[in-house]
């Protein structure tokens, strides 16, 4: 038998700039990270997100919010994606990417409205072409690929970005999206925020693949893995992937490796299926601490600034919470009035019936 020879070889690269202690792991910091003000801004956004998230969980625990999906631990991944996108790009989230959305102009009160059981939360501020939260896993990947196909056909220099988790990267929709992105050379970035847990199923049980990033190879598009707790790495890989896609040179799978520090949602109890020690060690690698240490090493942040900023975040979040709590429920006919551009005749009867029950 002839010795087989390789027909194609692949390599998956990993990007990290700051280690868990906030020490640079390489000297070539990207341009944006040399600007202290930009790094402080990113840190403040991550910090705000954490204050908001804790408040949302507290609201759920006190019966003032429905089930809520926490973003604790994902702050660098989420804020970093937001920082790399332009308003005209399209963002297709799963259901915990508030950090991306706040960057794009969605308000905390919109998030609270959604988890508080009110559709008006998805009629949010920010880019009107962005998609709302998507509960069925990974279906948003194909919607982002479809958006990217629309941009390509209309010759618009725009990029579509979707987020799934490690579990979501097992879905047919994810594979369909990266396959189409390769087949049509779409400006599509499929981000996998790999937080190690799909509710109770660990990353190791999702796939035999060594990395999740390498799934991009099957679609014939770029792929890269980055430390999802290092916001400098996140922004750097996202900026590069988005710039390449915007220039018409195809899409990318970006795997951001992080850890879900919270339960899956407030309806979950992760103590049932994962070891306390694992969570403890994950806290040592979490994203805020390392950036804070790095900022402090450059004299860009201090204990006093931290205290002041936290207080300001608390006030802003309270304003948003109050706005949410003060919003009255929609009238009963709202469940009919947005289903179609124009209400079909068969629904007029049911709408009238609902109103009759309401006005009894």
């Amino acid at each position, binding site marked *: 038998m002839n010795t087989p020879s390789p027909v194609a070889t692949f390599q998956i690269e990993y990007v990290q700039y700051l280690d868990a202690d906030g020490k640079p792991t390489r000297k070539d910091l990207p341009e944006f990270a040399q600007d202290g003000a930009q790094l402080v801004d990113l840190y403040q956004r991550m910090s705000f997100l954490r204050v908001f998230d804790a408040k949302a969980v507290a609201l759920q625990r006190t019966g003032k919010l429905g089930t809520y999906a926490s973003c604790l631990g994902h702050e660098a991944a989420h804020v970093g994606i937001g920082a790399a996108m332009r308003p005209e790009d399209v963002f297709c989230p799963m259901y915990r990417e508030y950090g991306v959305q706040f960057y794009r102009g969605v308000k905390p009160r919109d998030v609270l409205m959604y988890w508080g059981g009110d559709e008006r939360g*998805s009629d949010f501020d920010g880019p009107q072409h962005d998609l709302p939260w998507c509960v069925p896993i990974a279906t948003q990947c*194909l919607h982002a690929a*479809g958006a990217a196909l629309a941009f390509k056909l209309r010759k618009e220099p725009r990029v579509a970005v979707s987020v799934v988790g490690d579990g979501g990267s097992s879905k047919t929709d994810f594979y369909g999206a990266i396959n189409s992105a390769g087949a049509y050379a779409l400006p599509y970035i499929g981000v996998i925020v790999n937080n190690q847990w799909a509710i109770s199923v660990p990353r190791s049980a999702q796939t035999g693949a060594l990395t999740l990033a390498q799934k991009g190879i099957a679609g014939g598009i770029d792929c890269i893995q980055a430390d999802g707790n290092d916001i400098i790495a996140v922004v750097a890989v996202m900026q590069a992937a988005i710039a390449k896609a915007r220039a018409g040179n195809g899409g990318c799978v970006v795997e951001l490796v992080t850890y879900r520090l919270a339960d899956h949602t407030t309806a979950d109890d992760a103590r049932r299926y994962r070891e306390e020690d694992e969570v403890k060690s994950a806290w040592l690698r979490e994203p805020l601490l390392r950036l804070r240490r790095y900022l402090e090493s450059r004299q860009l942040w201090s204990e006093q600034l931290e205290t002041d900023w936290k207080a300001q975040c608390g006030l802003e979040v309270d304003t948003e919470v109050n706005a949410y709590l003060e919003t009255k429920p929609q009238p009963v006919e709202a469940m009919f009035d947005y289903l179609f551009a124009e209400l079909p005749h068969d629904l007029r009867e049911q709408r009238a019936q609902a109103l009759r029950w309401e006005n009894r």
Partner: protein
Amino acid sequence: MAQITLIEAVTQALAYEIRRDPSVIVLGEDVGVNGGVFRATAGLHALFGSDRILDTPLDETTIAGLAVGMAFQGMRPVAEAQFDGFIYPMIDHIACHATRMRNRTRGRVTCPMVLRAPWGGGIRAPEHHSEAPEAMFAHLPGLRVVIPSSPSRAYGLLLAAIRDPDPVIFFEPKRIYRQYKEEVPDDGEALPLDVCFVIRDGSDVTLVTWGAHVKESLEAADKLAAEGISVEVIDVATIKPLDFDTIHESVKKTGRCVIVHEAARTCGVGAEIAAQLAEKAMFDLLAPVERVTGYDVPMPLFRLEMKYLPSTEKIVAAARNTLRYR
């Protein structure tokens, strides 16, 4: 003016809308150079090119998801499911997103798309090529479900479906794709998406049907006419929203109703029509409502398919049953 078949009317409507509206895109498997396995998109790729007529990777989930994503960004995709039996993986995107996005976002994001599919049995095709899943779609809130039964209605209803600001499922009865030709002016005139069509006037029995079984229903009406029985035939055409008023008006006149559909009986669209007759037309009825439908079994392979499908004979027998009541 040229006479055209039902499938040629589909092509004519697609071409008209592609010319009229730059946001209309046709996508699916083999819809490009090949012109579709049934030829629904024949010639369109040569006329409009790869930016308007897109072959897709061979994955129905992908076709549905891409179409939904394009529609969310203001395009008007007309996606093709190559066969009715391949549509099931697409339902996730239709049920969870296409039908809900306007409502979910309180009008901010909308989904003006059409999903077309050849529909129904009777062409001696392999398994999964002869299904009638209209009831599954009719059960989804937020969706219009349309099944034309003639070249001119295929043309007018498809124009309306593409122009509609919300998602529409458009099932094409493949058994009558080439059954006969008629004159269909290419005038861009759409038909309404919320009415039934009375296609034969009568006074003794109302036959309510859609799709390919309009043919057998009209044949049954002819046979019964020879016996002096006057049959009214209604082509439902738009399954959802259902124009019950037209059916009711007919039943007020005839007092008898036979519903004919090739889909399985239980929870078929006929059950909904019968329920509305019971709710709103009970005192207009002289006889129990009859249903002539497929059986509650999978569509058999083709040696038995004509025994599964409603036949002219079965429709005549059902109509005669209703005439036992005076």
